[in-house]
């Protein structure tokens, strides 16, 4: 008959518990290493193989490159349209040189659609930002490779 009293006990017992609210944006969430935020891009590593653009389920990546004096392909433009990107991570999965990677940037809201059209410079800036924020996560080999190229 008085089953609801048990319920009242439950809610009262929650009163002194530790609160779970995260004070975003004063306190930022901590993202794990695999977190799939907005991409970062290292132009020096890219070999213009176009695999990322082909695997993309929403065709949001477009890129172009030219051959330099050593007959090596160099990336010229690399754009991701974040209007339609679904952050599925398939592009980083197929990239043979790990030049396109995911970062932990996640705040994508913007007043204009144009702001969501991210070009190579923005993506490289994002890479630098990521390296500054997580020096421990950037593999030394990768840094070396970037230095060589």
């Amino acid at each position, binding site marked *: 008959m008085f089953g609801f009293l048990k319920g009242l006990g439950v809610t009262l017992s929650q*009163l002194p*518990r530790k609160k779970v609210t995260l004070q975003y944006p004063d306190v930022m969430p901590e993202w794990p290493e695999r977190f799939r935020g907005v991409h970062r891009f290292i132009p020096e590593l890219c070999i213009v193989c176009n695999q990322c653009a082909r695997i993309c389920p929403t065709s949001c990546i477009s890129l172009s490159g030219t051959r330099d004096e050593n007959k090596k392909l160099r990336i010229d433009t690399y754009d991701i349209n974040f209007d339609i990107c679904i952050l599925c991570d398939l592009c980083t999965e197929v990239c043979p040189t790990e030049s396109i990677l995911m970062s932990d940037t996640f705040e994508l809201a913007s007043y204009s659609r144009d702001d969501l059209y991210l070009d190579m410079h923005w993506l490289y800036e994002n890479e630098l930002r990521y390296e500054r924020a997580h020096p421990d996560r950037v593999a030394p080999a990768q840094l070396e490779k970037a230095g060589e190229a």
Partner: protein
Amino acid sequence: MWDWQNASPLTGLNFVAMVVGAVVVLAIGLGVVTYTIYAERKVIGWMQGRIGPNRVGPFGLLQSIADIVKLLIKEDVVPERADRVLFLLAPVIAFIPSFMVLAVIPFSARHPFTANLAVGALYYIALSAITIHGVMLGGWASNNKYALIGGMRSAAQMLSYEVPLGLSLVGVILMAGSLNLNDIVEAQARSGWWYIVPQFLGFCVFLVAATAELNRTPFDLPEAESELVAGYHVEYTGFRFAFFMLTEYLYLFAMGGLMATLFLGGWTGPWLPGWLWFAIKVFAFIFFQFWLRATMPRIRVDQLMSFSWKVLLPLALLNLVVTAVLKAFLS
């Protein structure tokens, strides 16, 4: 000049004192409402693992004030197809009685702002019934189906719970032998126990009926968000909406005061000053309402009705008869 409780109120300084008293009570009422809303959000937040308002002012203390300011400067929208006159009138009709009932609540032993009304309890019940008109008219005038259903439900609910609420008071009135709320407090002090003990059944009926009368969980059908979107005030914006909110929380305060007066000995109590005892008792009632809101699902509308007529009313009547018989035999 503060003796107008006993002297004629309409002479000279007494009249000024009366006006000042009304303004002071209004200010107290508004302050209590502001911080009741704040406390509600904090307490329910804590019960749900949240921290509640914390951005405006220290500990979010100015949150309610910010909300009021927001509501004040909002655009006042009157729907095109609404019944304009009634739509504008409804919040006023709802609000005025909620403030007027505060006139009879005895806040402390010797303060000048309480009308020493011989029919205090009756006055409360009668005036609080007027609010139903405001709610129903608001729902009707909005010309919105959800608001209409909300308003009708509200009227039906408040009317049905008015009856057991009134009857549960009668037991106390019989024991005290007076309808005057001041006298009832004094009668409790004389008898040596709070009426919650001899009138426990009446107290339970009062508590349930009061919750329903206040439209609070689990009886918050008139404003069931998940069913009626918001109920009778769905079309109201800005300050008119604020008036409905104000009405609701003023009644919460007034009903807490009524309960403290009738069942918990009002301002009487050892050691502490009378007004503090009164505040503690009122807040206990208000906290209980928050606690219920954090726990209970909503009752269904037809069950609500049958609960009032088939359970509460017989219990209230039984309480009344037993009280009357005992009083007759013991005296």
